[in-house]
């Protein structure tokens, strides 16, 4: 109860700012800008999902985007109208061509399925740490991509699935982001989150203090997979069409840059990183097309977005390994500033007397 309340108070500031921003865009912006804002909130949900795992375990994951794909495909396969399904995937296994459920139960089922896959893969992953775990997550990404691509009967492969009911909109993405921030902060500050972070700092000492490292890793893995899965559902139900390439390296790289730039150990850092990368890659994208600035046409520069992301990661790794915010949440920064102020006041008082 205490923890819920504290997390709620700490989450008010970032969520409040984001909601204000989103509302302003809803009220005043053009459709194109609304689409950009939607992508920002969707990526924020995914980045925060990734943070829950990477930030608390200290293990880098390249595999989380596969959970985005899994839940996106799951929700699509359950909600595409039956008539369309008969032409798209007539030979779908598990009688899926004849199954249709409402959007809400479909979302619940998709997230449950994502959690199940996460739990199964987590049983393997929890036993290993460090580089071995990171390679396993990379393998997960490649395996899921191969499945999306090659299981034509189920996914239509690279020709992509369409006809998914377009039910999502910016307010939904905002709500999902708010929930994700709250869940991530709650987990971070929970007993398990604290112990898990301890294990990422000093595994031996954490084990000696009775930290159940394996089961906590598994818990973080499943929670983060479900959050990323929510991002996948936001993706599918906004575009109405999905293909394997949306859930592979490009997206992984984008989300990694967001989490790393802001500081992977802090939820607040991830919010900052997501905002900066979103603005930066949007700017890079508009430059790519060779825009006209002050009357002169700039040359077209394809691939500028990827170049921008790569540069950010390189600069971040060389100049500021811990990201912009390091270990600190917004509330830590406020508290530290207040502490420094009282110290200064006390020192001034001593000097005066």
């Amino acid at each position: 109860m205490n923890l819920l309340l504290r997390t709620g108070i700490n989450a008010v500031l970032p969520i409040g700012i984001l909601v204000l921003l989103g509302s302003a865009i809803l009220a005043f912006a053009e459709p194109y800008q609304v689409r950009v804002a939607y992508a920002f909130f969707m990526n924020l949900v995914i980045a925060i999902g990734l943070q829950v795992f990477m930030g608390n375990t200290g293990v880098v994951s390249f595999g989380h985007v596969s959970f985005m794909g899994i839940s996106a495909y799951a929700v699509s396969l359950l909600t595409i109208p039956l008539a369309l399904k008969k032409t798209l995937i007539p030979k779908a296994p598990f009688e899926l061509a004849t199954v249709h459920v409402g959007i809400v139960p479909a979302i619940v089922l998709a997230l449950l399925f994502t959690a199940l896959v996460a739990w199964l893969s987590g049983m393997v992953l929890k036993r290993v740490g460090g580089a071995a775990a990171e390679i396993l997550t990379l393998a997960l990404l490649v395996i899921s991509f191969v499945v999306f691509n090659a299981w034509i009967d189920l996914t239509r492969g690279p020709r992509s699935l369409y006809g998914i009911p377009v039910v999502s909109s910016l307010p939904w993405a905002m709500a999902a982001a708010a929930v994700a921030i709250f869940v991530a902060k709650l987990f971070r500050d929970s007993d398990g989150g604290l112990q898990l972070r301890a294990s990422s700092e000093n595994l031996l000492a954490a084990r000696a203090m009775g930290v159940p490292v394996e089961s906590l890793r598994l818990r973080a893995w499943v929670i983060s997979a479900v959050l990323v899965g929510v991002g996948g559902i936001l993706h599918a139900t906004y575009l109405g069409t999905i293909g394997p390439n949306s859930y592979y390296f490009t997206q992984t790289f984008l989300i990694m840059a967001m989490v790393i730039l802001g500081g992977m150990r802090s939820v607040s850092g991830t919010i900052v990183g997501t905002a900066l990368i979103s603005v930066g890659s949007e700017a890079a994208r508009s430059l790519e097309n060779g825009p006209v600035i002050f009357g002169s046409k700039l040359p077209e520069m394809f691939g500028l977005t990827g170049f921008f992301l790569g540069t950010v990661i390189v600069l971040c790794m060389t100049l500021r390994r811990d990201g912009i915010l390091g270990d600190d949440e917004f509330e830590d920064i406020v508290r530290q500033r207040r502490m420094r102020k009282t110290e200064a006041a006390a020192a001034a008082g001593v000097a005066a007397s």
Partner: protein
Amino acid sequence: MNLLRKAEVAMPPPPAMSVPGDVPPEQRLLPGVEKKLRPGVKAGLVVQGLSKKFGGIYAVKDVYLDCRIGQIVGLIGPNGAGKTTMMNLISGALRPDSGVVFIDGETVSAASPADCAEAGIARTFQNIRLFKRMTVRQNVEVARITHRRVAKGKESGPGVDEILKLLNLDGLAELKAGNLPYGHQRRVEIARAMALSPRVILLDEPAAGMNEQESRALIGSVQMIRDRFGCGVIVIDHDLKFIMEVSEHLYVMHLGEVIVHGPPEQVRHDERVIEIYLGRKARK
């Protein structure tokens, strides 16, 4: 429960291990020790025939050791004698090749470090291992969470705030542990271990890097821990003055074996100890 009673008696090794008569006299518990125990409490740590080889060479060889509740036991020996290896074996960080560790009569050997922590064995590290980026309070909290989980609502011993106060850390509680000077960091390690409300705590060279004054204060802290937390304490250190003063019973290890043990006054005058310890210095 059967085991518990057996361990409490004096310490005949369990029949499967060896016959009581096989235990060399100097490895049995000295008669004086029993009297030092607080009345009514006899449980604690019992180590029987512990051995560990690294690459065919014994780092610890057939060690018997006792640390009852309320007892402060010293463990000394030259570099490489096997003291830290003993700690690692007792706390589950290493698997013993043979031998048994009992806590309150229950076997904990071959358990994982986390299981040992839950069973009531807490430790500090010779090379400090704090959660550096976390605050002092969070370091202590990590261990306390384990205790709360194991105790299932029936917490025992002082809480986090009181532990911090007892170890003079209350003013530092919100600072990051990695930024503190070493002397303070050692105290944070002790505070963190105490938060498990353990049955026995193992301190690996707590006075290393401390000045005369700090190690004096540490003697008081160690005694305070024993009294306030009601546990057994095993202290390793190279500072003989410190260890002679703080411990009630002293074990001397050499090349993996306990060569002698007894009250510090007695051990101090033992010929073998003088030979390996003081004699070596005298010869230099």
